C-alpha cells in the first residue's frame, strides 16, 4: 500500500486521464463525436421542421406525391457521409497505429508480468524481484510494458484512467504499453465477465514519483512471503485477494498482499502449464474442483510461447 500521506489525486476513468494514451483517447473521442455530428445534426434539425411544414392538418409546403428523386440531393446524401467517414477513417487509422498497445512508449520500459486469476491479479516485477497482488505501482514519466496471461478463463485488464484494456488469455500472452504522465491514484479492473466474484476483481493503481516507487518496492522486498509454486497454487484458488489471505496465513495483515519473487520463472511456468498435459478439473484453476495440491506447475518451457507479437 502506498503511504496514505502522499495524498494522490483520484482519477475515475479516462475522463480524467492520468496516462498519455488515455489523454489521446479522450481527445479522439471528442474529435470523432464532433465529426459525426456533421451527419447527425441535419437529421435532428430537419425532422421537426419537415414534420411541422408537411403536417396533414395544416401544411404549408406544396404536396408532391410523385416526387421521388433529385440528383443534387442524392449527391449530398451520399457525399456528406462519405466525406465524414473518410475524415474519421483517416483519423482512426492514424490513432490506431499511434495508440497500439504493443508499441513501446519509451526506451527500456519497466517490465511487469501480469497473471489474471479468479478473481485477482498478480503483478510481477521481475527486475525488482517483487510481486504484488491487486496493486500496480508505476513511476510517473517512465514507460511501462505489461505482459499478460491468465491461469483460468479469458479476462480483460482495464486501467481506464491511464490506458484502457487488453484481453489476457490462458496459454497466450498479450501486451499493454503505457506511460503515466501524472501522479495519481485510480482503480483498475477486469472487464471480461468471469463468474461470481467478477465484480470484485478490482485493483489499485498508483502513479508515483521515482522515490515513491523505490520506497514501495523496498517495502515489498522486505516481505516474509515469497511467490513460489506453492503460494501461487493457493492464490490460484477462486476468491478475492482478501479471501486468499487466510490460506496464506496472513489474515491479520492490512493492505494488499506483497511478496518477494521466490521463483523468477513463475510467469513462464504458468504459460507452460497448458503446453504439457491435458488439464483435468483438479488441475485447472477456475474449475469448481480445482485442488492446489494436485496441480503442480511444470518447469518453464524452452519452446517459444504462443504469443501475440507480430
Amino acid at each position, binding site marked *: 500500500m502506498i503511504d496514505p500521506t502522499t495524498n494522490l489525486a483520484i482519477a*475515475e476513468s*479516462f475522463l480524467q486521464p492520468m496516462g498519455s494514451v488515455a489523454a489521446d483517447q479522450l481527445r479522439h473521442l471528442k474529435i470523432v463525436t464532433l465529426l459525426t455530428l456533421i451527419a447527425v445534426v441535419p437529421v435532428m434539425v430537419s425532422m421537426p421542421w*419537415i414534420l411541422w411544414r*408537411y403536417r396533414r392538418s395544416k401544411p404549408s409546403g406544396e404536396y408532391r406525391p410523385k416526387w421521388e428523386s*433529385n440528383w443534387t440531393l442524392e449527391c449530398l446524401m451520399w457525399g456528406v457521409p462519405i466525406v465524414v467517414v473518410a475524415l474519421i477513417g483517416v483519423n*482512426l487509422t492514424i490513432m490506431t497505429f499511434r495508440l497500439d498497445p504493443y508499441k513501446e512508449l519509451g526506451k527500456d520500459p519497466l517490465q511487469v508480468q501480469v497473471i489474471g486469476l479468479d478473481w485477482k491479479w498478480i503483478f510481477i516485477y521481475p527486475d525488482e524481484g517483487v510481486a504484488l497482488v491487486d496493486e500496480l505501482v508505476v513511476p510517473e514519466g517512465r514507460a511501462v510494458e505489461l505482459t499478460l496471461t491468465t491461469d483460468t478463463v479469458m479476462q480483460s485488464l482495464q486501467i481506464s484512467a491511464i490506458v484502457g484494456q*487488453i484481453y489476457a488469455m490462458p496459454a497466450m500472452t*498479450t501486451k499493454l504499453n503505457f506511460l503515466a504522465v501524472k501522479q495519481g491514484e485510480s482503480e483498475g479492473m477486469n472487464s471480461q465477465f468471469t463468474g461470481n466474484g467478477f*465484480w470484485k476483481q478490482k485493483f489499485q493503481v498508483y502513479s508515483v514519483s521515482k522515490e515513491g516507487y523505490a520506497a514501495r518496492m523496498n517495502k515489498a522486498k522486505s516481505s516474509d512471503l515469497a511467490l513460489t509454486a506453492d503460494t501461487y497454487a493457493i492464490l490460484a484458488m477462486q476468491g478475492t485477494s482478501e479471501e486468499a489471505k487466510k490460506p496464506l496465513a496472513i489474515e491479520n495483515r492490512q493492505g494488499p498482499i506483497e511478496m518477494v519473487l521466490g521463483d523468477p520463472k513463475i510467469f513462464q511456468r504458468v504459460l507452460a502449464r497448458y503446453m504439457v498435459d491435458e488439464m*483435468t478439473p483438479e488441475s485447472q484453476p477456475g474449475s469448481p474442483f480445482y485442488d492446489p495440491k494436485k496441480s503442480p506447475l511444470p518447469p518453464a518451457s524452452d519452446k517459444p510461447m504462443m504469443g501475440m507479437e507480430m
Partner: protein
Amino acid sequence: MLDAIFGRLTWDSIILVQAVEEPNINTLITASAAAMMPVGGVMIVALLTWMKWWKPLFEWLTSVDHKKIGTMYIIFAVIMLFRGVVEGMLMRANQAVGLNGGFLSSDHFNQLFTTHGTNMIFFVAMPFLFGLINIVVPLQIGARDVAFPRLNQISLGLTAAGGFLFMISLMVGEFSTGGWTGYPSFTGRLVNPGVGPDYYILAIAISGIGSTLTGVNFSVTIYKLRTAGMSFMRMPLFTWTALCTSILLIFAMPPLTACCAMLGLDRFLGFHFFTNDMGGNLMNFINLFWMFGHPEVYILVLPAFGVMSEIASTYSGKRLYGYTSIVAATMCIAVLSFTVWLHHFFTMGQSATVNAAFGVATMLIAIPTGVKIYDWLATLWGGRIRFTAPMIYLCGFFVLFTIGGLSGVILASPTLDYQLHNSQFLVAHFHNVIIPGVLFGILAGIHIWFPKIYGFRLMEGLSRITAFLWAIGFILAFMPLYQTGLMGMTRRTVAYEDPALVPWMIVSGVGSLILGLAFLSILVTILVSVLNRKKLMVPFGDPWDGRTLEWWTPAPTPEWNFAVLPKVECRDAFADAKEKGTAYQPIEKYDDIEMPSNTYYGFIIMIMASGLGFGLVWHMWWLAILSLLGAITTAITYAFLPQKHNVIPAAEVREIDEAWRRAAREGRGITRDDEGNQANQGLACPDNIK
C-alpha cells in the same frame, strides 16, 4: 438403472424443490417464475377445454398457411418478450440498489443477463421478424404461400423447440452464466461442468437450424414466386429487406451452428477446439461466433428498415423518395455486414493494421445507413404527414437511432474501444440500436399489418400511448448507461462500489419500470381492440390507403390470398390502380385454387427436436437417440408420402371475390381524415388535399 433413465437429472435439479429446501429471495424469484409455467399450462388447458378450442388449436398447429405460421411466431415472441422484459426490470432494479451488492445473488444475476440476451435476440427479435416476414412477404409479392410451406412449418417447430429448451431451464436445472455470447473457456466443461452451457448451446443451435431454413425458404420464395410483372426493382422495400435478411441468414447462421457444435463436442466428448490446453484456442470460438453475430445485427435491423420505408411513404401519402438509393444502400449494408466482425474484439491483441482495417470497414456501414435515414426524411418532404402510431415510431427512430449510430461510430474506433469495450457504454449502444431500430420497426409493423390478417384495426389512441411509453422508457433506461460507461462502469456486474453511479442507476431503474408499462400497454391495446373489434372492422382490407399489393385483398385475407394473382406494371401497383380507378374492376375468369393441406410434419419435428435437446442436456442418452431416430424417420416418411392438396373450386372463389369487388365499387370510402374512426372500413377514397 435410474442413472440410465434420468441421466444426471435428480430431484434437486427441479427449481421448485430448491425453493422449498433453501428459501431465499433468489430461489423464490426463480421458483415463482418457474411456477408460472405449470400454472399457466393448466390454465391454458382448462381454457381450451372450456371453450372447446382443441380442434381449432390443432388446425393452427398443423397449418401451413404463411399467415397462421407468422401469427404463431409473433405469439411466441410476445410470450418470450414478457420474460425478457421482466428479466431486464429485475436487473435494473438490482443495479438501482446495487451499491456494494443488490438483492440478487451473483449467480442469479449472471443467469439473468445470459437469459435476457439469449432470449431477446434468438426468441424475441428473430421470431418477431420471421412472423412479420411470413405474414407480409407472400402478400407483397402477389403469391399464395411461401415456396416450401412444410419447411416453413419445420422452421417454426425448430424455433419452438429451442424456446422449449430455453424455458424448461427455468424449471429444471439452470441456464448458462456465460452471457449471450457464451465465450469458452468459461463455458467449457472444466470451468462450467453443469447443464447451463448445454442448455445454451442446444437451444440456440436447434433454433438456429430453423432460422437457416427460414432463410432458404424466403430467398426462394422471393426469387421464384413473384407475380407477373413484379421485377426486382418493383418489389416493395419490405420485401427487399426480407430478401437481404434471408440471404444473410443462409450465410450467417452456419458459423453459429458450427461453433455451437464444436463447443458441444468439447463439452460432451472431450474435444479440444476451444479449450485452454492441447492446442485448443478460444479465439476461434469468438471469431466464429461474431461471423454470425455481426450479420445477425443486420438480420434484425434490415426488416425493421423495410417497415420504416413503408411507414414513411404510406403515412405521408406519397412515393418513397430514392427507391433505387435505398435498395443499393440495403445491399451495401448486407454485404458489408460480413466484413466487420472483428470489431467485437478489438482488444484481443491483434495488430494495429488489422484493427484499423476492421475499424474503417465498420465505419463504412454508417454511410448506407445514413443515406437511408436521409431518404426517409426526403420521403416525408412534400408529403402530407399523418401522426399515427407508426409515424410516432418512425420519428422516435429518427432521433434515437441516429444517436445509436453516433455511439456506434465512436465504438468503431479501435482506440476508443480499448476504453469502452465491455462497458455500460456498449450496453447503452446496442440497446439504442435494437430498441429504437428493431423493436420500433416490429411494433409499428404489427400495428400496420394487424388489420390485414385479423380484419380489424388496433385502437389508434392506445397504440400511440404504447409508442410513447417505449420511447420514454428507453430514453430513461439506457441513456444514463452512456454516462456510467464513460465513468468506467463495466457490463455484467452484479454490484459496484462507486457511489457516483447511484443516481444514474436509479434513473435507469425508473426507465425500466416504464418499459414494463410499455409491454403491458401492448397487451392492453390488443385486448381492448379485440373487445371492440366490431367497431374496428376493415372488411375492404385497405385501412391506411396502402400502396403495395398486400392491401389489394379483403381483410381478413382469405387462405388463398389473391383470388386471381395480380399483374404488376409499376412500383406501388395498388396505389396506381386506385388512382386509375381500376382497383376493384370485376374479373372475368376464376380458376380452381390448389392449396397445400395441413400436416403434422413440423409438429412432430418440434417434439423430436425438444426430446433430442433435453436428452442431451441431461445425459439421457436413450431419449436423445430415440428422438434423433424419430426425427430422421419422420423426415424420410414424409418425403415419400404424397403431398396432399386442398382444391378450392373456382365457383367458391368467384362468389367471395365478386362480392368484395362489388361492395368496394359501390362503397363510398373514406378520406384520411376518418382514418382513425369507425368510418374506416378499409376502403380509401382519393384524398382531396392540396
